[in-house]
């Protein structure tokens, strides 16, 4: 399963199919990060099967709806608690991201886990995502942006010039004062 593009957050509600009309069956709700609703449903069954005695064949999904960010233009610090399988064992991790949306932060998390730990998407379980107040942030790469008068230059700018020649006698211009 490929977690391509930007992930979205879904709320999936499902239950075991009741044997008859009188049987009361509990509903299970999960928040899933997936590229689309089809993968969301698939992951729902994957997790529910591990936790409860219900499978796709004897269950039904009541509702799938996409959860949208309440304030998509507010910069937030997200704490992501995850569990992943490395080559030698399974570990828990806590990572922090600065982003506008929860799904943006989780997308960054998957990309970072792939880059830093070679963890594939199917090996990663997002346990919890929560907005963290600036005072409670722990990671230095997030703490450094906790500054209302932030100010920095852009040194050594590598500008993407798609028309640059393959061979040239001129060094590229990287200083934009």
């Amino acid at each position, binding site marked *: 399963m490929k977690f391509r593009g930007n992930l979205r957050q879904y709320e999936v509600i499902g239950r075991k199919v009741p044997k008859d009309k009188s049987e009361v069956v509990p509903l299970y709700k999960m928040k899933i990060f997936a590229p689309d609703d089809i993968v969301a449903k698939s992951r729902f069954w994957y997790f529910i099967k591990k936790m409860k005695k219900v499978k796709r064949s004897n269950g039904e999904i009541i509702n799938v709806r996409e959860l949208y960010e309440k304030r998509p*233009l*507010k*910069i937030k610090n997200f704490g992501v608690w995850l569990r992943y399988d490395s080559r030698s064992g399974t570990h828990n991790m806590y990572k922090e*991201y*600065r*982003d*506008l949306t929860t799904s943006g932060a989780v997308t960054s998390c998957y990309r970072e886990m792939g880059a830093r730990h070679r963890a594939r998407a199917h090996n990663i379980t997002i346990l919890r995502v929560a907005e963290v107040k600036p005072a409670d942030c722990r990671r230095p*790469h*997030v703490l450094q*942006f906790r500054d*209302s*008068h*932030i*100010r*920095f*230059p*852009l*040194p050594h700018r590598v*500008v*993407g010039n798609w028309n640059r020649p393959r061979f040239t006698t001129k060094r590229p211009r990287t*200083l*934009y*004062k």
Partner: protein
Amino acid sequence: MVFELYVEIGRVALIKCGPNKGKICAIIDVIDQNRALVEGPSIKDGVIGVPRQSMRFKHLQLLPYTIKICHTTRTKKLTAAWEKSEISKKWMESAISKKLIASERRKGLNDFDRFKLMKAKQKRQRMIRMCMGPMPKK
């Protein structure tokens, strides 16, 4: 080497990529090392401004103008500060803006326009050479 153009709250930048290419905006806040939250009011009538969004620094060219705003200011206050500093006017009068307009014009020329341009250039060069001709060579 001292830098003059800093990424800071209120820095005005030109957008180089994407659907808002060619428009200018102000940096309202910094998301992380690669991205800023930007917004730009409309400069010309009929041209929509830049709606509040995240933008990569790689897609921005910092300009030598700043406005005085607090981080994550509301649109109204941003527009007021923008107008107070007369950024639109300064930008329209700047050399970069004029060059951009000229290059846009040049891209939009049709074959006849290019022919006319060639003839105009030839005429101009001839006039210059006529003046240079009788000048004594050093």
